[in-house]
């Protein structure tokens, strides 16, 4: 972990880190963009998750919902990575020792693994079940797990400010 800590110290003292840290308005502006990204990423992901769970949007096929909303999920995700790295760089060593930040990163990793597993397993055979009002158990599970994780990530994000 020594390397990670050194990396955090370097980020803290980098031009990017000090600029954001020392500016009165950069951090709030980037944080606002990070909030916009939450709406795009978690909003679009939730639509797909709710469809997989069979809770909403059952009039549309799963592949149609995925086709239309995955691009927005990716736009939101990239916005979150970029703004998240900028926010992180302004207080990297502080985040290094924050438990809430670690929990948030673990949940993001879990959400990524969940999405990956869903895509290489259940989604491969989507043509066979996408018109069913009730998706296979693995797809319903992936949807429920995903929505729980993303809202957990939002909650953890808010708590970082207080930790």
């Amino acid at each position: 972990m020594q390397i990670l800590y050194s990396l955090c110290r370097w980020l803290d003292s980098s031009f990017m880190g000090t600029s954001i840290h020392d500016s009165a308005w950069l951090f709030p502006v980037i944080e606002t963009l990070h909030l916009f990204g939450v709406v795009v990423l978690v909003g679009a992901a939730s639509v797909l998750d709710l469809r997989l769970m069979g809770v909403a949007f059952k009039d549309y096929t799963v592949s149609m919902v995925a086709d239309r909303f995955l691009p927005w999920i990716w736009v939101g995700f990239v916005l979150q990575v970029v703004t998240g790295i900028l926010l992180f760089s302004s207080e990297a060593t502080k985040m290094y020792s924050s438990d809430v930040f670690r929990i948030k990163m673990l949940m993001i990793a879990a959400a990524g693994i969940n999405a990956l597993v869903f895509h290489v397993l259940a989604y491969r055979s989507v043509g066979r079940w996408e018109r069913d009002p009730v998706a296979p158990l693995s797809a319903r599970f992936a949807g429920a797990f995903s929505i729980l994780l993303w809202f957990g990530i939002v909650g953890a994000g808010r708590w970082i400010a207080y930790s």
Partner: protein
Amino acid sequence: MTPAYAFFHWLMQTYIGTLMRTNDYLFPTVEALHIMGSVALVASTSILSLRLAGLFLAEIPVSKIAGQFLPWAWLGFGCQVITGTLLFMSEATLAYANVIFQIKMALIVLAGINALVFHQTVYRRVKTWDLSNPPFSARFAGYVSIAIWFAVVAVGRWLNSSVANSPPPPPM
């Protein structure tokens, strides 16, 4: 003391207002729920707005998108009113006198008026344009709605630091 100040002072001193202010966990938790609610509200209205603007889901009738997503928008709105009221109660006298808070409330009223006008006018004739490119007034309502709701999110973020840093107003 003006009646408004007296009322907001009373609101702050109620059991709930006091609890929200003095409990270490309650305010951040309600704030987290307020952000979650903004996802439900702003994402749902934005999907309908993008459809109205002609930018998204053009092959699905407008009335169907409205039927699918407006219940989620109302759910999010209900969550925002409840959590927003709780947050407000904890610092009512600070918030009501804060210009950023007043701007946020004005924007929410504007979003409501925009939605109401849309529903009472061009949406009444939705059957005539459900699957074609929406008329100008519908596209306009879509753009205005997206702009206002994202502005509400941004102003909400600024409210957070603004209220926290503002000195307590003198009793009027």
